């Protein structure tokens, strides 16, 4: 009973929030809705994780079903991940929208529409995580394309409209390949004994009876198609543009959640393929995809000049690492892959939220235009720096354990895979070096001349950056602190150009960090740290989820 409610609650709450935003628009009373939806996701994920018996060792198949939805350990994991990223994104959205409204880049109606689209996006993610049939997974993931297209293009500048167009065209055609793959898989299923249809659990169980030739074709198309939405090469080209142009909280969600959920669909397909074809076919396919993605990310990170695109390419690299882990296979590597996705989500959310704030304050997303950010914006830049340390996989954080786990499994998995793992390790190190170099240039050093950073600033707003603590995450107090200090002095008419000179945004005083954003940044970093230091409860769930993905 409780589990059934937990299955229905996330898509229900998100849809309800979208309805409220659609009717009431963006108001003071509705600002808390998205964090509320995120909390529902977290609670439902926790209830389901208990229900699948992750901590009692009684891991079976699905624990709860409601019509076309059902939940297993991987579902619980995905819901927790969505909640963990949506909570900081939802907390930071009010401050972001307020700054956009103040700068004249968005209208009040546009703000309401953006919030509605974000809620719809969360609903689609919930359905994708809980869908019982591969067909419904496809529908939900395609729906996210449509919902987020307008979010990517919401600024209506040349670059953002182009990014939205590229996003829709590439993702729609990529996902069309996945539809063809789904159709072919169903053809194979109809011919197999017992006709499992498109039900994922039934397909995985009866995979051995599928026609291998047809299944091979179907799996290749499905991996390519869902891989498009997961940001994997060769159909990755939408990702840097979309992530750089979307509003920061949306970028956080797309990078932390959408890529991970789409990749979980790839993992489900992989489980079916292993049963029907043996491990070799998907292993080769995923290895090629993984190394291509990681190579691409490493080369484009080295000479990157835009810090939002830098974050986007690092997402491609991380998903490539995840694909490598999926290629290696086995319970240890798959659990490490899930830990990688879990560690990547909150870290990337913090980075995108920090980057979005820096863009709003400095007016540019060029790396060379941002210097000495740690001195001029201590909270945001500090969070960005710590988030970057978490992202490149330094020890206290979860990504370290995840990458180590994948590397260990890879080196033990036979000569071919071991060579690929070594190559991948080199690429990971190159990417990490490039990321740290760029970040160091942006954050360290003295603040550039012309910004009133070293001089003591007027008292009312200066204490805010150093102390995010007094703000409880209650939206009431969040609004009070942020509304007075966001970019009010910025001239409204000249705002739309994203390449506006850096000097105009910070006027006489240093803009205080909105409390909602500060809570989101600190909370996201705390999630990263907890995942790395005290991952024990999560480990059981990860292993349970990995067990549902293994071939029998």
């Amino acid at each position: 009973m409780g589990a059934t409610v937990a299955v229905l609650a996330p898509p229900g709450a998100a849809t309800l929030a979208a309805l409220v935003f659609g009717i009431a628009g963006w108001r003071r009373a509705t600002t808390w809705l998205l964090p509320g939806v995120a909390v529902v996701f977290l609670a439902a994920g926790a209830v389901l994780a208990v229900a699948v018996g992750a901590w009692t060792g009684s891991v079976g198949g699905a624990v709860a079903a409601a019509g076309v939805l059902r939940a297993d350990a991987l579902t619980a994991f995905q819901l927790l991940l969505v909640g963990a990223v949506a909570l900081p994104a939802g907390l930071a959205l009010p401050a972001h929208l307020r700054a956009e409204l103040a700068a004249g880049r968005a209208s009040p109606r546009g703000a309401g529409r953006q919030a509605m689209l974000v809620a719809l996006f969360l609903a689609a993610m919930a359905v994708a995580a809980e869908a019982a049939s591969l067909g419904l997974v496809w529908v939900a993931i395609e729906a996210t394309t449509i919902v987020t297209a307008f979010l990517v293009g919401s600024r209506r500048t040349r670059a953002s409209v182009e990014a939205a167009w590229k996003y829709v065209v590439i993702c729609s055609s990529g996902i069309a390949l996945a539809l063809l793959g789904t159709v072919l898989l169903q053809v194979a299923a109809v011919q197999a004994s017992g006709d499992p249809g498109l039900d994922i659990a039934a397909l995985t169980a009866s995979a051995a009876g599928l026609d291998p030739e047809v299944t091979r074709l179907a799996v290749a198309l499905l991996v390519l198609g869902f891989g498009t939405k997961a940001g994997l090469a060769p159909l990755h080209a939408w990702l840097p543009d979309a992530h750089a142009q979307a509003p920061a909280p949306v970028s956080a969600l797309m990078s932390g959640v959408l890529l991970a959920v789409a990749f979980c669909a790839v993992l489900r397909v992989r489980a079916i393929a292993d049963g029907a074809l043996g491990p070799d076919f998907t292993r080769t396919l995923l290895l090629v995809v993984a190394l291509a993605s990681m190579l691409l990310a490493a080369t484009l990170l080295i000479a990157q000049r835009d810090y939002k695109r830098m974050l986007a390419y690092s997402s491609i690299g991380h998903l490539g690492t995840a694909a490598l882990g999926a290629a290696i296979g086995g319970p240890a590597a798959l659990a490490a892959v899930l830990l990688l996705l879990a560690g990547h989500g909150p870290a990337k959310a913090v980075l995108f939220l920090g980057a979005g704030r820096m863009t709003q304050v400095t007016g540019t997303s060029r790396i060379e235009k941002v210097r000495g950010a740690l001195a001029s914006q201590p909270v945001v830049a500090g969070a960005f720096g710590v988030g970057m340390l978490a992202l490149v996989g330094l020890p206290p954080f979860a990504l370290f354990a995840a990458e180590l786990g994948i590397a260990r499994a890879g080196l033990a998995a036979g000569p071919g895979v071991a060579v690929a793992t070594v190559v991948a390790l080199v690429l990971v190190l190159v990417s990490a070096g490039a990321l740290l170099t760029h970040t160091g240039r942006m954050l360290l050093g003295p603040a550039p001349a012309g910004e009133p950073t070293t001089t003591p600033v007027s008292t009312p707003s200066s204490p805010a950056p150093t102390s995010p603590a007094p703000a409880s995450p209650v939206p009431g107090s969040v609004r009070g602190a942020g509304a007075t200090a966001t970019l009010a002095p910025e001239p409204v008419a000249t705002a739309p150009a994203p390449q506006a000179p850096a000097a105009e945004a910070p006027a006489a005083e240093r803009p205080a960090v909105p409390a909602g954003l500060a809570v989101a940044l600190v909370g996201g970093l705390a999630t990263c740290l907890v995942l790395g230091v005290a991952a024990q409860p999560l480990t059981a769930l990860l292993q349970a989820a990995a067990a549902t993905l293994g071939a029998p």
Partner: protein
Amino acid sequence: MNAVFDLACGVLVLSAVLVVWRRELSTVVGLLALQGVALGVLVGVVAVTERSLELGAVAVGLLVLRAGVLPALVRRALAGSPEPPRETRHDVALALLAAAALALLAAVVTRPLVELAPSPRAGAIPVAVTAVLLGFLVLVSRRRALSQLAGFLVMDNGITAVGFLAGAGAGLVTELGASLDVLLAVIVLMVLTGRIRETFGDTDLDELRELRD
């Protein structure tokens, strides 16, 4: 019935080839409508031979959507276009050569599918896959936003045809969801085309060069 079936298959692939060939966008829209009719008839024939009322309803729905609504949407976007609606960069000989190669590829790739359950209906699968590949070709080779949209629609018609020819019928929920998604994706693309025209002056994606590494 067999003659109608063969005719529908022929029209399906021929209209795809013509979309690859022609550059006048108004012609392309007409071809899209024609292909939609062929797809509807194809599913209709399958419905009659299987005596399935459900499939018959799907056929009517497909006819309305693919032959009516979607081409009409594209035509409306075309009507708002200020300059002569032709594809600018387009090498006909090369495109047709590529089309022939893709038809061969489709025949090779789909062999296991046809052999899985040999029947006249399954025998037409290579034709539908050819349409998918030709749509993809148009999508990646054209620069004009509306041409890319046409390629996307051809690809989708082909995928739907594969589903029904292979006898899967993809399940009513999935088919409904897929059709709705296609419709929404097209509407999103229309809105974006409008915005591109607002900000760039026309819909030629050669103009889209802001974002690069």
